[in-house]
């Protein structure tokens, strides 16, 4: 079968939309199979996610975390690595943020405390990714396996610390003591209040600015700095990077380190922005959603922001549907997420030939791009 190449715009826009549509279709079929009305579900979902300010607020709160984990996966991917460890790196990030908050929030003012929490959170996440990276670069251990193991180690570590050291004595709840106010990021309700705008009370908080900043920073890093150039070159063609004199081991460390740091920022949203204390479940699968987000967003920060909002909408809308439609639960959203990872990730190119056929046909049977000279002897 001749392999017709896709023009770039089709590769970046049409194919993802097609893959998303197929995933939605598959999920829709499942919804219908369990006796629900897919259209009804979609309507409630969209309304739940965007129809009210409160709903929108929740959507954006979820999206904030997904931006961080999605960027993490994307940066590693540009370096040619698959970072499945976002879950564990986010846990460590939150842990770092929380620990420094518990330690210093009573004594430091907010303008010192918050940046410190950010730094420590990013650092913890970075370290948690750097260890598997080091093992990959210098000892040849496959980074996928080690990061999966590190995910489990992270949750074990969190449980251990919370249960044995951080739990408030005499309390049944597996939580740390709450932070002093200087360690909490103002919620959007508060922030908008300063601007004189009415905004409902919700977990949505000012860490969203951090998320947007991170997305912009990642964009500039990847396409406007030399380090980003070297990273992308390594991820695209290790041999060309070697020719250019780029050290592959350094690139692995850099890619994973940055990736872990980005995932670690989840702590700013969940721990500093919402919980105000260390709890058990503040990541709950966001690391894996980050994979779906990055795949959908084609590893580009702009796409990731959009995809994060999409997934935030799915989560929030899903909660609303679970509320209103009998028999529906948020697990449907999880299932859809899985379909998206399947169709946009593993099967991304199954549909490519058909899409190429249609696209090239619509452009008037243009001949495939020039065949690179085949010299045989």
């Amino acid at each position: 079968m001749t392999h017709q190449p896709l023009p770039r715009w089709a590769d970046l826009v049409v194919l993802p939309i097609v893959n998303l549509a197929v995933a939605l279709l598959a999920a829709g079929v499942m919804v219908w199979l369990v006796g629900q009305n897919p259209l009804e579900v979609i309507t409630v979902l969209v309304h739940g996610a965007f129809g009210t300010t409160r709903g929108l607020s929740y959507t954006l709160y979820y999206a904030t975390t997904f931006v961080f984990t999605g960027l993490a996966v994307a940066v590693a991917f540009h370096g040619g690595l698959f970072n499945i460890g976002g879950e564990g790196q986010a846990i460590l990030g939150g842990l770092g943020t929380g620990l420094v908050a518990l330690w210093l929030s009573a004594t430091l003012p907010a303008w010192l405390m918050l940046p410190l929490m950010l730094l420590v959170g990013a650092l913890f996440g970075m370290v948690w990714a750097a260890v598997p990276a080091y093992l990959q670069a210098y000892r040849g251990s496959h980074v996928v396996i080690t990061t999966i193991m590190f995910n489990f180690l992270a949750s074990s570590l969190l449980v251990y610390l919370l249960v044995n050291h951080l739990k408030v004595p005499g309390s049944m709840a597996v939580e740390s003591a709450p932070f002093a106010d200087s360690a909490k990021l103002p919620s959007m309700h508060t922030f908008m209040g300063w601007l004189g705008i009415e905004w409902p009370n919700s977990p949505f908080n000012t860490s969203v600015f951090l998320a947007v900043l991170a997305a912009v920073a990642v964009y500039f890093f990847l396409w406007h700095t030399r380090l980003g150039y070297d990273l992308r070159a390594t991820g695209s063609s290790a041999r060309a990077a070697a020719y250019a004199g780029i050290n592959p081991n350094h690139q692995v460390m850099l890619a994973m380190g940055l990736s872990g740091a980005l995932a670690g920022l989840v702590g700013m949203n969940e721990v500093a922005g919402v919980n105000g204390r260390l709890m058990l479940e503040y990541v709950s699968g966001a690391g894996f959603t980050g994979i779906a987000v990055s795949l959908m967003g084609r590893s580009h920060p702009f796409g990731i922001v959009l995809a994060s909002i999409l997934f935030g909408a799915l989560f929030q809308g899903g909660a609303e549907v679970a509320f209103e439609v009998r028999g529906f639960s948020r697990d449907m959203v999880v299932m859809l997420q899985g379909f998206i990872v399947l169709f946009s990730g593993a099967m991304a190119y199954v549909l490519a030939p058909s899409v190429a056929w249609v696209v090239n046909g619509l452009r008037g049977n243009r001949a495939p791009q020039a065949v690179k000279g085949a010299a045989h002897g």
Partner: protein
Amino acid sequence: MLGISKRFGPVQANADVDLTVGRGTVHGIVGENGAGKSTLMSVLYGFYTSDSGSIKVFGQDATIRNAHEAIALGIGMVHQHFMLVETLTALENVMLGAEPHVLLHKAEALVRSRLLELMESTGLRVALDAQVSDLSVGDRQRLEILKALYRGAKVLILDEPTAVLTPQETEQLFGVLALLREQGTTILLITHKLKEVMRLCDRVTVMRAGRVVEEVAIADATIEGLAEAMVGRKVQMGRVGDSEKAPGAVLLQARGIHVRDLMKVVRLHALDIELRAGEIVGIAGVSGNGQSELLEVLSGLLAPVRGSLSVGGRQFEAGAWIDPRTARTLGVAHVPEDRHERAMVMSFAAWESAVLGYEWLPHYCRSGWMLHPEMRKSTADMMERFDVRPRDAQLQCSSFSGGNQQKLVLARELGQAPKVLLVGQPTRGVDIGAIEFIYGQLRAMRDAGCAVLVVSSELDEILALSDRVIVMNQGHVAGELPIDECNENTLGMLMIGGGNANASDRAKAAQVQKVAV
């Protein structure tokens, strides 16, 4: 095989080739790179289907669409790159795909007895229970031959078999082939080593540029005649663009370069080379004789096990070899042979690949921040100077034709005004019109005082460009000749490894004469 033609895109790999091989004979097929010999054999073994022509095997018409049909007809092939599973034993490798029984221990017993018989009758000895990863290269090749014979090959195709063998292993192989011939096996030997052909073969076919240029019985052939047929062109003297100046100072000197590959095969034997300002040195020789490794060592991509390098006022030894970035800072530019994998990042846009290797220059990058306008401007300049089409710096590298990609790479490297320029296959895939332009650029570099090293499998190119020609053979310098001493005779002889000593003696004598005059 009659009238075989095969085209790959713009390249006519085989044009109306006839090949008739007598049963129970050893038939050699010789030619330079790109002559078409591998393509022809791939057609016979079913990897390709010819565009036209017919094949008859043992008198019967045959259509060979894949390797299995070829095997069924009794054709076996031993490739240059072995197809073995390292973690399995030799016996298991022979057996794979043709196991006579579901239960391994029974299958092994059956196969073992047959193999022992085969090993007796052919003299091919391999330790059947050894893991392939423990076997030497010579052993592995013997194993490949056994594999083919086990499957009932009556026609055995060998593709450059002695490329990776030591002299002793080569002798052993010759013995085996002679024995096989006595037993009635027909052998097709693809090689560029005429000495081997003279020793082993009954008849030989010489190919050049996809056609058969000569077919003769060994008894009636001479090495010189074959070399001439293989190289087949008269060298023009007094070329356009020859420099009037004598070469200047030594800009790069490498001594005792010794390189081993992953399989411990020696690729470069204690090689010495010197590059002078204002001189183009051409490395001639059939690919695979160490030229690629030489380029990689000199550019810093590969570190030798022994040797020293002196360039740009600095010395490098084997344990602490130069790296590509340092090479660039010292003014060494490298146009790699492998354009797709090395020279560019195919998924980058042209304006990004245009600074590959130089992205750290202050011109392109300030405090870690890439200067996009400068990068784009440079790319536009490059495209203008080298006439790269389409003139679109935004276009992805993979969308340019091969020739334009090459022009872009050359523009990038030459644009850095290097002191030493290492070029591999400068005009591979480039259209005719651009070739002269590129030659002009290379000569201009030389005239400006650059030391240029050109590696090319196209002898024409070497002859057109070089002031001095080095012929490499099996990791050695077979000989070195100034351009006015090069003719099809001397060069051909050096390339085929015949008369090594004579040629370099003659060269030295000629040089002495020149100086004296």
